[in-house]
């Protein structure tokens, strides 16, 4: 509208017929949404068997909103649990590689090199898997836009980027003579130092969410993931042909990992079971089946591993079982989280039984100003009297005269 005269503009203001041309341009906050399909149908009761006011799966003590989930389901696709496995293997392999580099002597150099190769390949595959999961893969570099300690995903992005760079440098330079070689070996140590959190941060990532099951197992899941990473890295490295000397190292590494994995898995289960509704996904359905499969395969892998005898087929069988167990555990945890987020009572009962803010804040009252714990009377039907909270003018039962208007 640059060729408007002042007269034109004045007339447009006054004649009441011309609309603002900008009103026809999509400028709203949500107008940038790229929409190909309408949203899928909402979850909810297919057909209510009763009138809405009398329906629902809940009791008066434990109500919900038509049984709808409170939380949004985690959006992670298959590539994220796959990354949990691959990233764990990469982290544990880089730790073993650095240990062999500095303490293993000449006889184990080939194994140290193999560890570095596995770690570097794992880092690269991990990055690919994570980028594949993004809603806007082209913007993956935004992950390194900020450094945010409150976000395990931000921390993990930096750890993965750093360990990938360090392991690649180590792989390329460690056999060179002179200063380059020293630099490569130092990079290997850096990769190993970053490999430790790489193997464990994924559990923090999972538990630092609102999903009741994941939040609940936050204290023990990192130990499980790191033990499992040790076991799966040892198993994968043992699947490659290797000498007796290398077998002595690998056997100690992987068996220690498998034993720790067996114990920490039970700890995760115990922690999840503290509230029935929270632990339920691990005991039934697809998630429960994956979790049971992971336990069976891992224990079988450990059992076959410690049986006497050194036959190659036995070794391959044990390592394959352990690998399947580790992968199934990752997929089982993710699937169980999805189920947990879908169940409103997992959120409600968990928080009512002290797994919400009460765990860290020590508050004894829910957000409605009443005690956390169940059973609660239906409101408005003779709830027991309690003293009102001081300095809270809206506490229940504090009768104050209405303000003069």
């Amino acid at each position: 509208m640059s060729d408007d005269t002042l007269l034109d503009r004045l007339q447009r203001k006054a004649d009441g017929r011309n609309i603002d041309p900008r009103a026809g341009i999509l400028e709203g906050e949500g107008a940038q949404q790229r929409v190909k399909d309408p949203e899928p149908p909402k979850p909810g009761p297919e057909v209510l068997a009763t009138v809405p006011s009398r329906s629902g799966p809940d009791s008066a003590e434990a109500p919900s909103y038509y049984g709808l989930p409170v939380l949004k389901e985690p959006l992670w696709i298959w590539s994220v649990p796959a990354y949990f496995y691959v990233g764990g293997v990469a982290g544990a392999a880089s730790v073993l590689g650095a240990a062999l580099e500095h303490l293993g002597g000449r006889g184990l150099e080939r194994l140290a090199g193999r560890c570095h190769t596995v770690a570097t390949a794992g880092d690269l595959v991990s990055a690919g898997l994570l980028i594949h999961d993004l809603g806007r893969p082209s913007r993956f570099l935004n992950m390194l836009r900020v450094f945010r300690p409150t976000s395990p995903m931000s921390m993990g992005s930096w750890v993965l980027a750093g360990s990938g760079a360090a392991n690649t440098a180590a792989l390329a330079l460690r056999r060179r003579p002179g200063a380059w070689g020293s630099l490569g070996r130092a990079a290997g140590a850096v990769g190993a130092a970053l490999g430790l959190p790489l193997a464990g941060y994924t559990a923090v990532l999972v538990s630092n969410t609102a999903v009741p099951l994941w939040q609940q197992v936050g204290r023990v899941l990192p130990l499980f993931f790191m033990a499992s990473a040790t076991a799966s890295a040892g198993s994968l490295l043992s699947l490659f042909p290797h000498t007796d000397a290398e077998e002595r190292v690998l056997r100690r590494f992987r068996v220690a990992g498998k034993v720790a994995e067996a114990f920490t898995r039970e700890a995760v289960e115990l922690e999840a079971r503290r509230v029935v509704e929270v632990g339920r996904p691990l005991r039934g359905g697809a998630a429960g089946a994956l979790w049971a499969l992971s336990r069976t395969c891992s224990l079988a892998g450990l059992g076959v591993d410690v049986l006497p005898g050194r036959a190659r087929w036995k070794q391959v069988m044990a390592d394959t079982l352990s690998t399947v167990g580790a992968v199934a555990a990752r997929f089982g945890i993710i699937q169980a989280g999805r189920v947990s987020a879908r169940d409103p009572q997992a959120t409600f009962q968990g928080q009512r039984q002290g797994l919400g803010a009460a765990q860290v804040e020590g508050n004894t009252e829910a957000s409605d100003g009443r005690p956390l714990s169940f059973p609660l009377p239906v409101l408005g039907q003779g709830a027991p009297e309690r003293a009102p909270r001081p300095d809270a003018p809206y506490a229940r039962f504090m009768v104050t005269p209405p303000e003069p208007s």
Partner: protein
Amino acid sequence: MGSRKGFFTDTTLCIGCKACEVACKQWNQLPDDGFHFTGMSYDQTAHLGASTWRHVAFVERPAPLQGQTSGAGDFSWLMMSDVCKHCQRAACLEACPTGAIVRTEFDTVYVQPDVCNGCGYCVSACPFGVVDRREDDGRAWKCTLCYDRIGDDQTPACAKACPTASIQYGDLDELHARAESRVRALHGQGVTDAYLYGKDAESQPGTGGLNAFFLLLDKPEVYNLPPDPVAPTKKALRAWASVAAGAVGMVAVAVGAAVFGREGRG
């Protein structure tokens, strides 16, 4: 710098007209949601999502409202216009790895669509299940508290459209005072069930208080609100401590395997 802004949603005044839903969709030019029928009372929206930033919940409960008798017997409606809570300790903001989610000069929480890369972590982090990712768009979206309007000293679209002043927008201090006097008035009228949900850190320590808080008449669960929500980051320290413990164990195992597995050892 603007002052701290927020919503006070008084559910006792809500008549379930959904003007807020419509106004929000129109102002923000949000796409339609497929016109699905849920069969849950008059609520066809079901929940907040990437293209639904206001949602009116219709609760039909088999109990009368306090101090009211109706021809319907043991029955009462509760309606609540739900919205992003703009928490003081915003789980989505703390989880966002790209810095796409920021706190604005109005103390609200805003997702920058030109930065978000759709990792979906905020979706899992939100204890209220508010923020969501639209699959064909690939980015996370939620209520902006009409960031584009309040910058021009206008009222957000939903509060502007609300015919009963159920949705009130303003400075947070002023809203707190208004909400407390409203609760006092209700208690004076015998509606002792009325309480404020998430007004401040004292009543909701897990989130540090909500910039969009509510006056409710029944348990939070009835409205699909969590009873004791917590920003997950508050529990992150123990998980990181476990990682540190696991790291010690991992180093011990690797060093042990390297040392004891060397040539000439058992």
